[in-house]
């Protein structure tokens, strides 16, 4: 199979497959509550519905509010193209640096918070303030995790890191178990999942992520929701391909690609199931406890680095 085709596939897979992840989480949570739940395809229908709908925009909204969904969506999609999903080949090598990906995502978060502040409603402001508090702490944990992986793989390029770990012995990468746990906490935080945020809440006073996009409707809301789904997909891809990349396709052969797809699907499903389990079993933590949890992530990542170096 040609490299061009593979590249196109890797670019498209995030936006196409990401709503399914949200659908699976919702379905799983419903089943855990003895409910039947909506179909796993419901998020696609929601996006299609929102795309067709008219928008209501506040009089006080400035260009920031109008542009933010496009910027957030574009930033998240750009980050997604750099992350390998089923193959170590065919990603945009120009922006394949992990620090690049982390900070392209941060651009999205930044504009999301700005948009929350822009219309001047109380909820948008509190949401933005909470998001920034969390983002600042999550960034530290994320960088600590990145350093841990970089120390093991001697590279900051995601595909190289992935390939390197794929070729390592279990003993060499065993310190990364702690870094993986830390990364999982960051994943929950960055994607507004429990115990940080409740993505399905109607309680406007407790929301973080939802509070910022409360004023959006129609197409812009669809873009925001889609971007959030893609971001989750990016984090799942990073978790899968940085820490447990075995099975990822390293050639362009059809057979290895199929194995790559299957391996990714299974591993992603395991991560989704963990999220489902956490969200069914655990309530949200108090807001002022959340820094403790993120600090735990930092400590785990740092220990991981220390073990690797010595």
């Amino acid at each position: 199979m040609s490299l061009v085709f593979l590249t196109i596939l890797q670019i498209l897979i995030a936006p196409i497959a990401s709503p399914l992840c949200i659908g699976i989480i919702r379905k799983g949570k419903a089943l855990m509550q003895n409910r039947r739940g909506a179909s796993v395809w419901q998020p696609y229908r929601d996006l299609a519905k929102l795309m067709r709908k008219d928008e209501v925009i506040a009089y006080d909204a400035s260009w920031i509010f109008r542009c933010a969904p496009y910027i957030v969506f574009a930033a998240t999609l750009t980050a997604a193209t750099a992350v390998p999903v089923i193959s170590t080949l065919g990603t945009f090598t120009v922006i394949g640096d992990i620090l690049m990906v982390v900070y392209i995502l941060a651009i999205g978060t930044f504009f999301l918070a700005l948009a929350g502040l822009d219309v001047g409603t109380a909820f948008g402001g509190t949401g933005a303030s909470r998001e920034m508090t969390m983002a600042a702490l999550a960034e530290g944990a994320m960088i600590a995790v990145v350093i841990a992986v970089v120390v093991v793989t001697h590279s900051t390029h995601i595909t190289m890191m992935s390939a390197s770990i794929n070729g390592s012995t279990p003993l060499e990468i065993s310190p990364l178990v702690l870094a993986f746990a830390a990364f999982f906490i960051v994943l929950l935080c960055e994607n507004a999942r429990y115990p940080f945020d409740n993505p399905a809440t109607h309680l406007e006073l407790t929301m973080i992520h939802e509070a910022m996009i409360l004023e959006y409707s129609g197409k812009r809301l669809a873009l925001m929701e889609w971007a959030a789904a893609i971001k989750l997909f990016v984090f799942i891809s990073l978790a899968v391909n940085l820490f447990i990349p075995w099975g990822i396709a390293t050639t362009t052969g059809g057979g290895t690609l199929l194995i790559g797809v299957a391996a990714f699907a299974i591993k992603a499903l395991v991560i989704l199931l963990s999220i489902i389990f956490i969200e069914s079993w655990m309530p949200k933590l108090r807001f002022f406890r959340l820094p403790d949890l993120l600090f735990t992530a930092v400590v785990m990542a740092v220990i991981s680095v220390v073990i690797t170096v010595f």
Partner: protein
Amino acid sequence: MTFRASVLNILNDFPRASRGEVPVYTVPALDIRTVASCLYHDEKLLLMSVVAADERPGGGSFCVYYSFGDPTHHAVLVLRVVLGEATTFPSIVHEVHEASWYEKEIYTLFGLTPEGHPHLQRVLVHENWPTDAFPLRKDFSWDTRPEMADGVFEFSRVEGEGIYEVPVGPIHAGIIEPGHFRFSMIGEEIIQLEARLGYVHKGSEKLFETLPFEKKVQLAERISGDSSIGHVLAFCQGVESMANVSVPARAQHIRVLCAELERLANHMNDIGLIMLGTAYNFGSSQLARIRERVMLLNERVTGHRYMRGMVVLGGISRDVSDDVLAGALRELAHIHKDFNDVMRICRGNITMLNRLEGSGTIDRTAAIDHGILGLGAKAIGIARDARKEFPYAVYPDLKFEIPLEESGDVYARWMVRVREVPEVFSILDQVIRSIPSGSLRGDMPAALPPNMISHGISEGWRGTIVHTILTDNQGIITRVQVRDPSFLNWHAFGYAAKGGVLLDFPLINKSFNLSYSGYDR
């Protein structure tokens, strides 16, 4: 009705008239503050209501009735202040703080000024309501449509560096009633919470004066949708005691059955909603399911999910067959087991319990000063429950406990409900097993006795409901004052949110689950 000698001593000097069972003492306006203070503080009587009445059409004047209840002797007495030519009366707020909200209502709806009230403002009516239209005066027709006025609602302001306000509502994200909350914040901390209510003010008390009898009963059922039985029971018991009607034993049992089913359904609902407030999905969805089982049972027993139309003056409207009762007994046993199984899992979730503990702790003194009722009172260790304090129907024959918690936080209010549920199951079991056969309705007289006052008291699931009912000199109901427990608890509620964080507010709100409609009427 009997009272302690010390209570009677205070009132010895004042002329006493018996209006039905209730002794009414006419107290000069000058003495009311002292007398009220003695009864409330020294004798520990409970303030049941402060009610104004426009008695001008019968040749009288405006009067204010202060009802005090004695929970140890299960009796109520009334102090009556005749205003004569005056449109002012002395405020007793400095002595009895919880009287404040009654006085504000009298000020708004009757145009009578409580003199010396430290914070007089209009309540319930919108700022567009003219300041010179007083809907509860007799010369104000119920269908008057006044001119739109241009008033301003004044929130109390907190000022200082870094303080900002968060307005929430009156339209909320969930399917709940309308109410506006104004938070004064510093960072995430709540400095002050002011609730602005009145969005669902329907003029129910005025309607009680104009509607025909059977519609009055229906109106009582609709004061607060989720406590239909609580309110209709209060109203019917008030009228029945006034008319001296004895309700047949079978009807009394079935009334208690309905009242406890209502308590059960609402406790299930709240226990689940509080867990939803912590985002604990398992608990919330399971309790919603169990609550639905109770609602279906309600429908099987009475023909209506909220049991409307069941309680009527003199008794109940339809019989419940032995088959249905036996079925209800079996279903209740299943629901009880279901509830125990679910709660064993929920109460094992330390993270969820930890989230409840210490959130929304209410200031005990402030709560007592505001006359906190029902679940809120039980959560600070005060057994305020009309089923024990002013027993009615068949409650005196039933064995049950009032569970109490001390900490006054969300956990305490959650736990009071959780622990009350087994008591409710026990009451239901006792009642169903002891239902006697017999008639369903006592005979209501064609007219009520004139110049009467009576108090319909029932323990709704939120707390004590009091309907104060007055008749004029022709025996026509001339005034009904409805006190839902939310009337007092809404004001105590602000003290539970104070010092907390905004993120906890939905949880605190759910832990009280006060009625907007019951407050606004």
